[in-house]
């Protein structure tokens, strides 16, 4: 890692932020129903959608109605996707004649895509028909991303509104997120990607005759259209098993940089949208700073460890950074940047083998996920999760200045505490519990490829990823088994709904409250002290929960490696 890599990363980051601020502003206008340059194009479609759904745009919901609509849409989506996979053998657009998917894998995948996790226990090109990929998986990629944004909008309204039980209309939020944000960006990105060699076709797979004289099947399909939303929607479910390491998903450096930009763009923009919506840009900036510090810390450690040679290989004369499991066309820097970015924003896409990174890089990836995916985080839910941490931090900070804790003019009492503690405690507990079950049962252990500390990391990573609704895999674990399909499915549901439902309920609670004035006696939540406290709380909570198991997993793995052996 040299100075050029650092400059490259800085420039990339500055570009992302330079795009994110106007996009954040644009979204704040879209979600408050103001006119934008897209209005003439999209408004007729928007109106048509409302008529189709049968909703009155001006009629708002209370939090229970909102949560009900959201959950129903998810249930219907899961059932539809589940059925589509089971029945794909009888349905069109299946040139390879792929049969129906096994019920447990289909259930796991249905939950996975509906919860914006995109955990893939299956291999795309040998499992899913074009129809399933396009009308099933891709549709959920859009919907799950939009649902996350909707949940965030509700929570923001909880803070901005007062003395009302109305927190918005789910269908309106969903439609606007889809029409004005996700769809246009996805279309543009898909076209650019296709221009760079990402395939887009309904033709059957191609058979090539190799120089050795054998036949090789080359999988193709409608990839570019799916790739775009996979990146911008914090999804990550690859068309192919190799995901973004596959040359048809991510052919060259340009597409790789574009995809990294796409991964970070909307999650960061939403933080600024938050600032605009609460009419306090500085607050958005403060939270953005918290996330960026955490992002930078992880990236720094990962880049450093990954640019060191593997000590065992070094003894054999291999020098330079750790290139095991990486695409040579991306190299160490772009692979690590991708790895940190995806584990931060809960995008399950991978462009290198996470199983092959140095143990401490793996630790960074796992730590990013164990925070609950709040470093920028998944669309909407990332900021929601960070706001829960902020509420906890402001609770302690409020006490320490001798005031009833408050944030953005809303007092934080026992009900608010319950609703903020649940989404932090429940996922932490679920990760440890499910990993402990997997590691003590034959069903869980039989999928494991590596013994000892590395094996522990593989299982731990699987549940960190599913509960964090990330979806990336450490690999080394055969996840397409009944045990992992079911426990993974449960994990994804817990991770998603233990965040979204408390957020909507909290919004309902906060909206009903009045606002307390910000006086000289209130703690300024935009200053450096605020940033330091929130960063410390996120790190401390993650570290205190996972220190023992990380010691036995990646840390011991690291100590083994530098001791010169594998176990």
């Amino acid at each position: 890692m040299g100075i050029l890599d650092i400059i490259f990363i800085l420039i990339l980051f500055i570009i992302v932020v330079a795009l994110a601020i106007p996009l954040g502003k644009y979204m704040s206008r879209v979600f408050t129903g103001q006119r934008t340059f897209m209005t003439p194009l999209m408004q007729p479609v928007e109106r048509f959608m409302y008529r189709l759904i049968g909703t009155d745009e001006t009629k708002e919901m209370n939090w229970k109605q909102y949560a009900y609509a959201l959950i129903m849409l998810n249930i219907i989506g899961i059932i539809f996707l589940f059925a589509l996979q089971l029945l794909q053998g009888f349905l069109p657009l299946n040139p390879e004649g792929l049969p129906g998917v096994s019920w447990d894998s289909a259930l796991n995948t249905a939950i996975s895509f509906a919860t914006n996790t995109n955990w893939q226990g299956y291999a795309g090109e040998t499992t899913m028909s074009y129809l399933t990929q396009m009308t099933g998986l891709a549709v959920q990629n859009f919907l799950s991303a939009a649902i996350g944004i909707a949940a965030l909008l509700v929570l923001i309204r909880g803070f901005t509104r007062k003395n009302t039980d109305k927190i918005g209309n789910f269908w309106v939020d969903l439609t606007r997120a889809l029409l004005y944000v996700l769809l246009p960006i996805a279309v543009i990105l898909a076209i650019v990607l296709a221009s760079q060699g990402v395939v887009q076709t309904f033709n059957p797979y191609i058979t090539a005759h190799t120089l050795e004289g054998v036949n090789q099947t080359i999988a193709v399909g409608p990839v570019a259209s799916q790739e775009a939303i996979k990146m911008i929607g914090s999804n990550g479910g690859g068309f192919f098993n190799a995901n973004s390491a596959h040359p048809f998903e991510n052919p060259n450096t340009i597409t790789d940089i574009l995809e990294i930009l796409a991964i970070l763009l909307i999650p960061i923009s939403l933080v600024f949208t938050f600032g605009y919506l609460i009419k306090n840009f500085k607050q958005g900036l403060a939270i953005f700073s918290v996330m960026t510090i955490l992002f930078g810390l992880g990236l720094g450690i990962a880049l450093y460890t990954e640019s060191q040679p593997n000590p065992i290989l070094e003894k054999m004369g291999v020098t330079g950074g750790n290139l095991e499991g990486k695409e040579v066309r991306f190299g160490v820097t772009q692979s690590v940047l991708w790895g940190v970015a995806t584990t931060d924003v809960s995008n399950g896409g991978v462009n290198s083998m996470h199983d092959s990174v140095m143990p401490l890089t793996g630790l960074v990836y796992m730590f990013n996920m164990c925070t609950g995916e709040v470093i920028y985080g998944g669309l909407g839910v990332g900021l929601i999760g960070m706001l829960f941490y902020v509420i906890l931090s402001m609770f302690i900070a409020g006490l320490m200045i001798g005031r009833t804790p408050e944030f953005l003019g809303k007092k934080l009492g026992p009900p608010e505490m319950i609703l903020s503690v649940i989404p932090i405690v429940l996922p932490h507990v679920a990760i440890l519990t499910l990993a402990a079950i997997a590691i003590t049962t034959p069903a869980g252990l039989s999928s494991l490829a590596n013994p000892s500390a590395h094996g522990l990391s593989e299982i731990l990573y699987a549940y960190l990823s599913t509960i964090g609704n990330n979806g990336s895999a450490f690999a080394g674990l055969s996840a397409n088994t009944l045990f992992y399909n079911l426990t993974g499915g449960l994990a994804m549901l817990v991770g998603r709904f233990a965040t979204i439902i408390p957020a909507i309920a909290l919004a309902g609670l906060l909206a009903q409250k009045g606002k307390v004035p910000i006086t000289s006696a209130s703690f300024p939540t935009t200053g450096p002290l605020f940033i330091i406290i929130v960063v410390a709380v996120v790190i401390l909570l993650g570290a205190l929960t996972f220190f023992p198991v990380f010691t036995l997993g990646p840390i011991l793995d690291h100590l083994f490696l530098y001791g010169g052996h594998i176990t």
Partner: protein
Amino acid sequence: MKIETSIFQRKIILNSLKGSIIRLNPITLIRNPVMFIVEIGALITTILTIFNIYTGVSFIFDLQISIWLWFTVLFANFAEAIAESQGKARAESLKRTRAEAPANKILKDGSIENVSALTLQRNDCVLIKENEIIPSDGDIIEGTALVDESAITGESAPVIRESGGDKSGVTGGTKLLSGTIKVRISVNPGETFLDNMISMVESAKRQKTPNERALEILLLGLTVIFLTVVITLSAFSDYMGITIPIAILIALLVCLMPTTIGALLPAIGIAGMDRLLQHNVIALSGRAVEAAGDVSVVLLDKTGTITLGNRMATEFIPAEGVDAKELIEASLMSSLADETPEGRSIVKLGKKELKVQGKDIHPSKESVFVPFTPETCMSGVDAGLKKIRKGSTNAIEKFVTNNGGSVPAEIKNIVDEIAVKGDTPLVVASNTQVLGVIRLKDIVKQGIKKRLLQLRHMGIKSIMITGDNPLTAASIAAEAGVDDFSAEAKPETKLQMIRDYQTGDQQYLVAMIGDGTNDAPALAQADVAVAMSAGTAAAREAANMVDLDSSPSKLLDIVEIGKEILITRGALTTFSVANDVAKYFAIVPAIFASVYPQIGVLNIMQLSSPASAVLSAVIFNAIVIPFLIPLSLSGVKFRATSSVSRLLGLNIMIYGVGGLIIPFIGIKAIDIVITFLGLGVKI
């Protein structure tokens, strides 16, 4: 009242020790879930120890862990017991002063019946003579009294209470030193001030405040996480070929759980109420005390709060062509039956000017007194056709013009001149003729300006409320340095003002200090309502705090104590959680390094053996509780720094960063001692 004799202290400590054993009862301990889990842990390790003794396995380590876990619970119980015992001691002494006083109840027909004080109902009237104990709370309806309130306030100087006005309240249990008074009882048996005070200081089952419950939810959440961490750790270790003994798992759990704050949380709240009591303020709800820390607006009744009690008549200024004597006589006549302090001061000054001091002047038989009402803004007397009135300029102008007269311009000049100086003009008129003006002087209390400035530093806006005209009010407001004032305020105005602040665009928490009956509605509406102990019963009933010293600047102390309770909780929570880092670095290598020596690099404290590492962490966790008891009883001081960020930064440095570092030093020190004593035996 201070009880600080050494014998008493020893008694308190003995009682607290007893109390900490009694509190081991799991049924009562379950109220504190964190300590309840520690007790279960202690029970399990004790059983293990006994089992080990029985089977002849090495038991010294388990025994030590058990002992320290029990101590952890006992220390927690002791903290709560000692916090409570201070209040209890006071309650005991209060109970002793409340002798079964007899009362002279005045029956409907005017005869007097001797009854027990405990049978008195609200609205009963009693006659109290010199040297009798006042049987219950009430208002004086007739007479003036010198009362010794030391039983309640600890203040030995007797106070004057008199009928009418805002100093008519008397408290059951206090002693009448001189005078004979008639009192209307204002409370039913069991609801007296003394009863409230005793139950408040005694009650172990006091209601938890919202802040306390919210913090408990956070602590419970952390406890659930750490329970999971410890239980799943045994599964992960098993997979890695490490077996962790149950005693160590329990030790790890206890160390990680927020036991420090869990142990001290009840004590902090109780001690806060006690500290209020030491400031002679009785809080009738803990919620109000903590709300005091959030107050952003305080409404101060001018009279008695900002100014020295009552306005005094200092000068009679006759109108042109009116004889001074005529004015004085008219003023005197109209004030004879006027029980207000202003009325009395007019009588006093009038007598002095007429040189008839000492003599009683009685109003003529046919005269009818017209009392003051906030609506008419005047009072006076009707003697046949002669109607004498005194009151505000506007009111008198209305009165005179209604009778066909007019107010001369020079009177208006006099009035303005008086008002500009901050004094109150009282215009006296007889039928159509304005006789002159009485100057009433209002004296701003010493030191009030400084107190108000301190409030402003805390971010609290002070608003003076007064019935005076705007000119007078402005002058006094400027002199006292209040942020704002509301003049010519009626009781409805006060109430509306509080409501506006509470429910407006921004919702302010409002404190109100008052003593009069007309303050009662506003007091009931305010979030923090402090009534003067000398105030009327209605005011005291509407308030959620009573200031026994009747010193209005007490609000500052109340706000500080409210803040200190919260700061102490926040500081100890931060300290407790920050401690976990060091404990991990002690225990985790101790558990794993035997199988994986590589993990020994995490033993950054260089603790001598796994057993001593675990023991040191457990011992540190236990003894930090008694070390912090004094802090939780006295509270973390609220420093009115230049900004809240500085205050927070300071507290984070002390309790956050300090909490991170101190246990590293403490655990290492304990490890050295343990190793020296040879207690770090094999697990």
